[in-house]
């Protein structure tokens, strides 16, 4: 991996997937979610900008996959596109397919999508406060959603909610049910959201930076909880995060995004052992580590990602890339590195 073959070398050409072929990671039709060429555009005064630019990846049945990137990489917009939760005044999906259990989510009516969101498709956000109603008790809002989506009677819903809180390790559930969101700690609120998101055993949970605002101890608790509950109900999880440590701990398959585009995709062991895209390598090198002899400094990536209106058809990372060459101004090929590992770089 990473052998710097001259650009004219035939062996390097042989590994290049033709640029119109996009990675099809699972390579089968069994994936629960197949995102293909997803393009999501923001309407700005400067024109239409693709915050998500032709992104393709799969999430398999019951597996935990990660979508990794820094701010502005398009990872959260990807999740909102899948959920159909984009604000239509600002952004819309303009291309691609979102195949979920064989149905293209883009073809569904908003009613059908809403029904799906309450049952088979679920999401937790970074800041649970924004998704909880501050004027309603925890108990009321959780049982209301059950009454709505599962058509349970009020008392039945309340019993279910109590059991739900117990299942996520919330002590004294009776008292928590009567509490308002602000009366709970950040970790407790996120537990409640996880409980609620997984209460109807969805097929897929999108977890968008679910623990970023929390202490490392609480983070570990919440992710263990998500992993355990998902395993029990066979729920697949798309973990959206900037934290490569969490990816290494929880994910089976990883998708790395940069400036709205996918740059690398691999099973977790292959990605960490042989990161192939220069951005992935630089990102890994910039993480301070507890598992290695102490460093005195980590390698920063100089500069910033390009603004979306500055991005062209060439590699979006090339301005910051130590390996950049003239050819990087052309669209990058997907290079197949074997074992479902692909990277969008001439030199991968």
């Amino acid at each position, binding site marked *: 991996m990473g052998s710097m073959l001259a650009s004219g070398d035939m062996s390097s050409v042989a590994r290049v997937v033709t640029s119109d072929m996009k990675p099809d990671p699972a390579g089968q039709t069994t994936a629960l979610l197949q995102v293909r060429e997803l393009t999501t555009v923001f309407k700005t005064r400067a024109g239409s900008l693709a915050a998500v630019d032709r992104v393709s990846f799969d999430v398999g049945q019951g597996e935990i996959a990660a979508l990794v990137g*820094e*701010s502005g990489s398009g990872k959260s917009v990807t999740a909102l596109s899948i959920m159909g939760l984009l604000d239509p005044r600002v952004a819309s999906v303009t291309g691609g397919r979102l195949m979920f259990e064989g149905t293209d989510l883009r073809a569904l009516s908003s009613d059908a999508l809403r029904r799906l969101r309450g049952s088979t498709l679920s999401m937790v956000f970074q800041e649970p406060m924004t998704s909880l109603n501050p004027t309603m008790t925890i108990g009321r809002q959780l049982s209301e959603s059950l009454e709505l989506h599962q058509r349970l009677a009020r008392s039945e819903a309340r019993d279910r909610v109590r059991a739900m809180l117990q299942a996520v*390790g919330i002590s004294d559930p009776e008292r928590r049910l009567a509490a308002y969101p602000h009366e709970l*700690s*950040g*970790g*407790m609120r996120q537990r409640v959201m996880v409980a609620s998101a997984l209460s109807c055993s969805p097929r897929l949970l999108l977890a968008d930076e679910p623990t970023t605002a929390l*202490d*490392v*101890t*609480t*983070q*570990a*608790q919440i992710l*263990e909880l998500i992993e355990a509950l998902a395993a029990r109900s066979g729920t697949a999880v798309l973990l959206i995060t*900037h*934290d*490569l*440590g*969490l*990816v*290494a*701990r929880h994910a089976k398959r990883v998708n790395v995004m940069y400036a709205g585009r996918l740059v690398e995709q691999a099973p*977790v*062991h292959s990605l*960490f052992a042989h990161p192939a895209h220069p951005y992935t390598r*630089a*990102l*890994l090198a*910039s*993480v*301070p*580590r*507890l*598992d290695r002899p*102490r*460093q*005195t*400094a*980590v*390698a*920063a*990536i*100089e500069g*910033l990602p390009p603004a979306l209106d500055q991005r062209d058809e060439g590699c979006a990372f090339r301005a910051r890339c130590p390996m950049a060459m003239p050819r990087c101004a052309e669209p990058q090929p997907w290079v197949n590195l074997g074992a479902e590992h692909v990277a969008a770089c001439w030199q991968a």
Partner: protein
Amino acid sequence: MRTIAHPLVQAKGLVKSFALRSQAFERPVSVRALDQVDIEVYPGETVAVVGESGSGKSTLGRALLMLDPPTSGSVRFDGQELVGLAEKALRPLRRRMQMVFQDPFGSLNPRMTVRDILAEPFLIHGLTRSSAELESKIGELLDSVRLPRSAAERYPKQFSGGQRQRVSIARALALSPDFVVADEPVSALDVSIQAQILRLLAELRQARGLAYLFIAHNLAVVRLIADRVVVMYFGKVVESADRDSLYERAAHPYTRALIDASPVPDPAIEASRSRITLPGEVPSPSVKTSGCVFRSRCSRAAERCAHEVPPLRTIDTGHRVACHFPIGG
């Protein structure tokens, strides 16, 4: 780092208590955000303070700078007692101690240009004679945080998060302080940008002989930057040690739990690590405690921990722990 015998900052027996009313009309109870904290920072040294939210680490930083003066105890800066000092007497000392916050957007006035933001400390302290002198100081500050001089004309919102943090570091450095409290200065930044800011902080420390109190929750970041680490829990110091001693021989079960909870970017290691997570969270400050404050979450807790407050005792050179049953001891 401790080549000079006298600490730059020395706090003893710091207590910060405030009245907490859990319900309207209820009689307020006094709770302690800091409980008998001792801490020393030597010139040029970086001391990291770690702990979960609610541990008191930010309160400690603010107390040392007298931004939130302690309820009792002593804070000496370069030998001079700060507690009880009138604001006027405090002022010349304030120039020498500065703060950098987590959220540079919240701490920079959005209506001011970077020039005005950087000029303000000089104007407040009446320290420049001419506008040409001020201009050259601002230029030097921008150079020292690696921002282009053209940045002076711009407003905070025109910068990325990392660049804003550079602006707030430049402002903190304006009056050439000896001591900077940095409260989670990189935790809101992207990893690649975080590395840039950490390198800048290390360079500035080298170039200016700065001492830092570095408040953080990320133990991998702390290991990179700190000389000494103080671990806080529920307003108390539970362990303090030289960096390598702490990471190699963490003695308090809480320190161990913090290290174990930190994921490392290596799936092979992660697959083989034990996934025993620390249960619960820092108790609410109004909770009445007896014995060891950590015992409700501690896997090693025994009968004695319920009755007897473990004192902070020395177990090795420069290594102190407040635990009846420390790991490896």
